[in-house]
């Protein structure tokens, strides 16, 4: 299972924090708004009650009062709420709504107390003030209560709460965006390092030298240590392979030399035949060793191809020149008929592929014949065709000849490892091309085509 990306984790974490903060701030704003609205109502109710209480006076032993308009007009400021009041001297109602709930607890004279209650099925808030008025025998406690329904307060709080919620959501959205940006920004050095590593060629194992944030230093230095170790181990195994080849080939060279010297001094035809057998076996061993190494090299390089412009015509001319002495030993002429055909690829590998095919052609051609290398283009394909005048490919399945260690049925006594065509095919496949084998039209000679996409 893939673990979550750091970027996503970081974004989610930051977004989570933002969500929490949004909800908290929304809650706080809402409750503050509620409180503020309530306090405003309380203040107004208190002012209203006080205004009424201030009109209380004693007249002929009776408590009198006026209901000033202003006491109620100030309450009108808060929405469409209904207002109730009651003024009572002791247990006697002076004016107002008799059934208005009585304030809980006895208030101290002069102080305003507040109650929340229900009246007529609606929630009300009520301010109550008590004053002592001298009437008759002694002071009478007169209670002035002013109440108001709370619809306006609820509406204001709801409105404020909605605004707060909108703001919170907006804050959350912005915070998530910023989180994603921050996550990406903080991961950028990491991505840059990754890009720098993946841009590199297959054999570029130099240490990465680039400024990195402190947190990435350990990663960078272990990456560099790893590359260093990798480089060392590749060098070691390359050296080992080269050394192994050297160790195998040097004594083979000696055996071959001795056999050649013996061949020259021995007169008997049977002995000569045996010595030639030895030489052939030596050649086969050294060829096989070489091709095994080539095969390994091709497999290694093909995994990460370098792609440079290569002109197949140049390649044909150069490789033909390199193999010309080998061909001359059998009086075989190499004729190149080439028109420019540009492809993208690894010149070393393509040369290796062509060399193997051409080597085969020379090996299986009779003496004093011609091998033709032809480069042309057909459609979007560049084709390099090598045609010899050899015995052809025989009757077996043609494509099977590119299988590893597979050799044709009619190879006779010719030395071969059966890897040459495999190497060529692998190289072409790595380039998105193909290797095509066929016996030439007249039934004599082999036609091998290296086809590659034109660049």
């Amino acid at each position: 299972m893939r673990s979550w990306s750091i970027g996503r984790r970081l974004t989610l974490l930051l977004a989570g924090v933002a969500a929490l903060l949004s909800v908290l701030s929304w809650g706080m704003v809402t409750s503050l708004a509620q409180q503020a609205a309530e306090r405003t109502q309380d203040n107004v109710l208190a002012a209203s009650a006080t205004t009424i209480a201030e009109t209380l006076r004693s007249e002929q032993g009776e408590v009198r009062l006026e209901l000033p308009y202003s006491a109620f007009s100030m309450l009108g400021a808060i929405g469409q709420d209904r207002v109730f009041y009651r003024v009572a001297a002791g247990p006697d109602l002076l004016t107002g709504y008799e059934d208005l709930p009585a304030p809980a607890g006895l208030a101290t004279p002069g102080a305003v107390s507040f109650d929340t209650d229900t009246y007529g099925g609606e929630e009300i808030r009520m301010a109550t003030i008590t004053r002592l008025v001298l009437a008759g025998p002694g002071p009478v406690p007169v209670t002035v209560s002013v109440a108001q329904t709370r619809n306006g307060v609820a509406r204001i709080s709801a409105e404020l709460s909605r605004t707060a919620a909108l703001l919170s959501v907006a804050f959350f959205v912005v915070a998530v965006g910023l989180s994603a940006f921050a996550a990406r920004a903080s991961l950028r050095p990491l991505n840059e390092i990754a890009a720098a590593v993946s841009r590199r060629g297959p054999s570029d194992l130099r240490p990465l030298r680039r400024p990195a944030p402190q947190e990435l230093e350990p990663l960078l230095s272990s990456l560099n240590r790893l590359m260093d170790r990798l480089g060392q181990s590749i060098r070691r195994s390359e050296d080992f392979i080269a050394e192994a080849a050297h160790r195998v080939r040097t004594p083979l060279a000696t055996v071959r030399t001795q056999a050649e010297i013996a061949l020259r001094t021995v007169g008997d035809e049977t002995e000569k035949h045996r010595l030639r057998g030895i030489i052939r076996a030596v050649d086969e061993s050294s060829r096989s060793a070489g091709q095994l190494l080539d095969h390994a090299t091709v497999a290694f390089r093909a995994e990460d191809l370098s792609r440079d412009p290569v002109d197949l015509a140049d390649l044909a001319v150069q490789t033909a020149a390199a193999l010309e002495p080998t061909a001359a030993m059998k009086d075989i002429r190499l004729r190149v008929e080439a028109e420019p055909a540009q492809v993208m690829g690894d010149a070393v590998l393509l040369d290796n592929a062509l060399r193997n095919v051409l080597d085969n052609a020379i090996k299986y051609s009779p003496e004093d014949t011609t091998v033709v290398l032809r480069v042309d283009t057909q459609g979007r394909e560049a084709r390099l065709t090598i045609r010899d005048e050899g015995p052809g490919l025989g009757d077996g399945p043609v494509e099977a000849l590119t299988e590893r260690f597979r050799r044709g049925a009619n190879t006779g006594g010719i030395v071969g490892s059966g890897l040459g065509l495999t190497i060529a095919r692998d190289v072409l496949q790595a380039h998105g091309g193909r290797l095509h084998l066929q016996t030439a039209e007249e039934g004599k000679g082999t036609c091998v085509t290296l086809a590659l996409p034109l660049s």
Partner: protein
Amino acid sequence: MRYLLVEDNRELAEAIIGRLALDGHAVDHAASLSEAEDWLATAGYDLILLDVMLPDGDGRDFLARSRAHLETPVIVLTARSQVSDRVGALDMGADDYITKPFDFSELEARCRAVLRRRGGAARNQVALGEALFDPLAGTLSHGGVTIELRNREIRLLEVFTRNPGHILSKSQLMDRLFAQDADVTENAIEVYVGRLRRRIDGMGVRIETVRGLGYRMEMGGP
């Protein structure tokens, strides 16, 4: 031609020297890089055959070091055959390379190819009756006409011109003409001698058959 062979394997070196001497080349042998430098300080060479792994260093390093002031063509002898090694040797200024173990015929063929590419000044023509034979270019000039010979014809004519008046056995000629792993019969020699006879017809030289022994080239009249 004067060759310098830098090779620490004594047996291989002796065999190469013996083989090159058959063609009339003088070969100096160095078994290490320091010996090679000594030889190079005292004499000029037409071609250097350089082994890669020597007791006192890598032949390719030597090549890279001396390439700047060394005009002589170099063929690298190597037991390393990896693609990268081959490219490396040529990049470092070698003219060609040959992978050990090799066939002497191939070594000769490569030497000739390199000398032909680099040559010009070092060309030595051989008077052959009324004709001029250029072994490097592989041409035969007679009466204003130059004909190109095939590789084996050149080899055969070269062997004959180096040994005028000597009887050369079919077996000797086979050794010089064919790779050792080629299973050819002595009849092949008859074919090539026949072909060569037609080539040099009327040039004032003749290849005689010495019954039971082989062939002999007479530089005399018809």
